[in-house]
């Protein structure tokens, strides 16, 4: 028994080393972007040529860049609101609606995971042209609601499912209407998850490239701006500086969303206890 446990630990420590190596593989290429964004050379190559902030300075006073940033922010906030609203209602009705329609909607809402981005992009491109909208910011919002929908549904569904059924039943037994139960009991209990879903949906929209490529009109988003700059070798350092800022913001938002999600689950456990 003792020998067996030692064996387990030895396996565990070998595996631990592997996991460490895996994390290095996962993060190293991405961390090269910040590294070379401070490098005083137009090439991303060793040896490093010395520290500079000049590439960050080129980010200021660039109207094309700030226009793309503003677009990305506005689209991200609207698309994340839409996707979160859909995630809340779809998963709530899936769990408590007791109707085949609600179940079907919830299943279809998670379908975009099984559709490659390029097909989501072209199907919406055909749709927005058909209704006379054409490639535009509204079209991008539609596309990003779709791309973020599986995430918001999954986050909200697991949150609602973690609230003990007795809580909702108690509210209904005490005479609260469906609407009051949802608004005054269930929604406040899942508020951290709502925020978490919103932030993740915003990140998805903010970083999304594959679908937006087909749906953008004359106003590009930030990823499209980066894509357009990649053709010019001279603007590579600027792209790396911009990429560093985007990575930092993504890390902060994703980290906050994760903390919120855990806080939410903790609250659910307290209610059930």
């Amino acid at each position, binding site marked *: 028994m003792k020998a067996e446990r030692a064996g387990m630990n030895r396996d565990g420590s070998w595996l631990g080393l592997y996991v460490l190596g895996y994390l290095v593989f996962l993060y190293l290429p991405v961390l090269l972007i910040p590294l070379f964004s401070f490098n005083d050379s137009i090439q991303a190559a060793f040896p490093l040529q010395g520290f500079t902030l000049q590439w960050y300075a080129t980010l200021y006073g660039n109207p094309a860049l700030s226009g793309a940033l503003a677009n990305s922010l506005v689209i991200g906030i609207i698309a994340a609101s839409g996707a979160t609203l859909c995630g809340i209602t779809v998963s709530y009705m899936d769990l408590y609606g007791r109707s085949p329609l609600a179940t079907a909607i919830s299943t279809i809402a998670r379908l975009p995971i099984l559709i490659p981005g390029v*097909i989501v992009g072209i199907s*919406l491109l055909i749709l927005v042209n058909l209704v006379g909208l054409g490639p535009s910011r509204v079209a991008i919002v539609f596309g990003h609601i779709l791309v973020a929908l599986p995430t918001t549904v999954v986050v909200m569904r697991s949150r609602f499912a973690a609230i003990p059924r007795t809580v909702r039943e108690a509210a209904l037994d005490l005479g609260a209407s469906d609407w009051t139960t949802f608004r005054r009991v269930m929604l406040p209990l899942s508020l951290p998850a709502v925020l978490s879903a919103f932030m993740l949906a915003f990140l998805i929209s903010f970083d999304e490239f594959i679908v937006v490529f087909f749906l953008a009109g004359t106003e590009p988003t930030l990823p499209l701006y980066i894509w357009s700059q990649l053709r010019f070798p001279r603007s590579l350092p600027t792209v790396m500086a911009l990429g560093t800022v985007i990575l930092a913001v993504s890390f902060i938002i994703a980290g906050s969303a994760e903390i919120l999600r855990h806080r939410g689950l903790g609250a659910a456990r307290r209610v059930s206890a």
Partner: protein
Amino acid sequence: MSTLIAAQAPEARSSSGFRFVMLLPGALVTFLLILFALGLVLFLAFRANDGSLLGAGFSLANFLTVVSDPLYWTVTLRSLIIAGLVTLATVVTAYPVAYYLAFHAGRRRGLLLFLVTLPFWTSYLLRVFAWKIVLAYNGVLNSALIESGIWSEPTLAFLNTPAAVVVTLAHAYAPFAILPIYVALDTIPKSLLEAASDLGARPFTAFRRVVLPNSMPGVLAAALVVFVPTVGDYVTPAMVGGPASTMIGTLIQSQFGKANDWPFGAALSVCVMLVILLVVLVARGADRRFGSRT
């Protein structure tokens, strides 16, 4: 009894309004943006390109071209091989990580889970771009190899190869695979493992006969969520793949861009969806064989 029914009546009335409001956003998005939009692709695939939005006539010409032109077989086969290799590489490398998370991580589990999922939330475009600067002719890898004296001059062999596409995609989609496998491993009842060891199974036998089969639903789910986005990818081939790694997604994208033949692009999309449907059905079948718990 009658008072009970009376008390429930107003709730039932408010219920239909409530249901309508709550079902509306999801119904709009799923039926209009997903089902109707996909229906449009299917419709367009059977039309001839006459420059108008929805094409003209009804024909199978697009599909006949796809089937008869060897170019599309080559590209489809290449996409399947690349996506297959990426899926295999991601799942095989992710499995030990998920295993460690489920059985050995202890108090570090939360932090490690966060660390492996964090790249999922960073820009896909930037992750691919990172590989471009790593693999470029005067890029990170070449210059590092020369600096360290391993090679005397830079090589073109890294960038613009199908291998570059496989490595880049495997890296970009690595975080997708860990979570489903981890969930499957984590939900294996501990009593099963104890039973295996009590009945005298050695650790490796217990893994092969108990843990691995029980985690197969997670492995299949992981394979699916990696395979689907990679088989239709067009960004990575464009960034690091070069002309020798054109994938089916690249062809679809160009039909809606430069080539400007939407009905043909729609037909290609329908073919990709059929391939994915086939893969999903195979995965479903395998899932059932392993006795899915999900």
